[in-house]
């Protein structure tokens, strides 16, 4: 009896260790990667086709700018910098945080799969993170990288050590920011399904919005995405620093460097909300 109890306690201890959770996460993902690699032709075709689609988008943007010269004072290369960073970071986030994708997670909650996860003796956040992993997001990531490469060749950026070191932090900030939006949307689906659509506007609409320089938007919209959802600090202000452009909005230059902080802040707020949601979660009973 006592032995059994000790064993149980030991097991519980192991389950809470970070190393165990880390291993568990990789195991959950590994299964999915192996499964998805079974359909190699489909995988390659999909990446190829989305690559062609994106190329067409880029081409038409290039054509339009050829005719107009610039967009709000930004050249094609400079726009590609914004577009590439957002595309790359969003793809990366979409690969890591797919489990929290509100439209998918909402379905899991409605169909009761989320209840199954809750019954397992492993950290719930790790389980949800490991519940979906789409290898095909590599396509979007590669496309982002490609657009970014265009930006590098078109927009003559003066690289310094500071810029090289800061670039990964900007990408990290963007990943955290979008991941935070996904987590908030997922948590919202504990209460209502309609919240998902509203969040989709923020995530997909937000990423589309951030692909263009923020000063082109009407004031009220830009203020919303400065003070309520601080998206403007994640790639617009860093881009001003990388491309050495002056700020048409006339704010402090320091704002170019808060991107990682804003991203982590967003993720922190989202995780707090997620924990609050889990605590108050009531199953739909299905």
């Amino acid at each position, binding site marked *: 009896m006592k032995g059994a109890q000790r064993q149980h306690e030991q097991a519980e201890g192991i389950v809470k260790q970070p190393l165990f959770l880390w291993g568990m996460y990789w195991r959950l993902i590994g299964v999915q990667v192996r499964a998805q690699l079974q*359909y190699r032709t*489909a995988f390659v*075709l*999909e990446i190829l*086709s*989305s690559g*062609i*689609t994106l190329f*067409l*988008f880029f*081409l*038409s*943007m290039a*054509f*339009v700018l*050829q*005719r*107009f010269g*610039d*967009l*709000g004072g930004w050249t094609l290369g400079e726009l590609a910098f914004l577009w590439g960073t957002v595309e790359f970071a969003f793809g990366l986030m979409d690969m890591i945080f797919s489990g929290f994708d509100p439209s998918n997670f909402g379905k899991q909650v409605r169909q009761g799969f989320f209840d199954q996860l809750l019954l397992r003796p492993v950290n719930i956040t790790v389980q949800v993170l490991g519940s979906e992993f789409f290898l095909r997001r590599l396509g979007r990531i590669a496309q982002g990288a490609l657009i970014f490469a265009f930006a590098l060749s078109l927009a003559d950026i003066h690289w310094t050590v500071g810029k090289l070191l800061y670039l990964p932090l900007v990408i990290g900030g963007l990943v955290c920011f979008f991941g935070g939006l996904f987590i908030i949307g997922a948590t919202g689906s504990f209460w209502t*399904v*309609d919240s998902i*659509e*509203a969040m*989709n*506007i923020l995530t*997909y*609409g937000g990423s*589309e*919005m951030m692909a*263009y*320089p923020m000063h*082109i*938007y*009407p004031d009220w*919209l830009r203020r919303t995405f400065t003070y309520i959802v601080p998206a403007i600090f994640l790639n617009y202000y860093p881009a001003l620093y990388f491309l050495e452009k002056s700020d048409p909005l006339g704010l402090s230059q320091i704002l170019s460097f808060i991107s990682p902080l804003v991203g982590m802040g967003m993720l922190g707020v989202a995780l707090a909300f997620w924990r609050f949601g889990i605590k108050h979660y009531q199953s739909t009973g299905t």
Partner: protein
Amino acid sequence: MLYNRQFALRPIDDGRWTIEERVQSIVYRLRSVSYYHKEFAVNLQAALPPIPEVRLFWELARRSFQRQMTYRAATLAGLATNLFFGLLRVAVMVALYGERTTVAGMNLQAAITYTGLGQAVIAFLSIFGWYDLMRSVSSGEVAADLLKPLGYFRFWLALDLGRALVAFLLRGVTVMLFYAFFFDIITPVTLWQWTALTIALVLSWVLSFAWRFLVNLAAFWTPNAIGVGRFAFGIAWVLSGFYMPLRFFPTWFQSFCHFTPFPSMVNTTIEIYLGLLMGPALIQALFVQLFWIAVTILACQRVLRAGVHRLVIQGG
């Protein structure tokens, strides 16, 4: 529920089925009836004199319309998304134009209206993709659909008609009303322009449907048809003039686009609305639409015939 029970208890050959009941039994697809009943309905249809196809077509369209009307939350969400993206597109156009007044025959007002019309037809033409037929193939429902006393193409056309009408009214017209409220947009003036616009809208819907149908038929060959769909719909975003007005492109790329059916889906309709196509050019554009409809439908029939021979229904 009551209807289902009646349906199950009646013997097959009692000959007392009203036309209405038989129509009901064919449009089962729009209700949730058990598989047994589906089989039953199909067998029954074979034994009785045929119902006029036109009647069936309109009944299916009506049912589809009613069903689509009930998706209120989805409609609202879609509308909100269209308006948000419309706002972004307008900002991009304003920034592009800057001080310029007219580019490629379009002034800023026309360009803004263009973005509105683009958002307005997204749902109407299912621009972001349509995978219903593919899903029916993977779920096996296709077996019963192919046995219907209505051509397979016409069956889906009827369903899409109902869906498109709702989308046109609730998503298309509404987007344009919002645009008219917030921005200074162009509206067609002459009666002739309105007439041409109506014809072009109908033709663009038929063409877009035929294209979507053709793409969906890929599901008869491969279980990964969704990938095919993403590609086929994705290239249409750019080549149809949905992403950017085709007029902004260099001439050689415009002519390349016009070698595909895509401009007839979006660009033509919008240019007629904006009054950019007039006189003989307008008539020609309508005939080009008709031409592409004929080509695509012909392709649909060919491919469908080949596909049905290949199709293997997995279980039931």
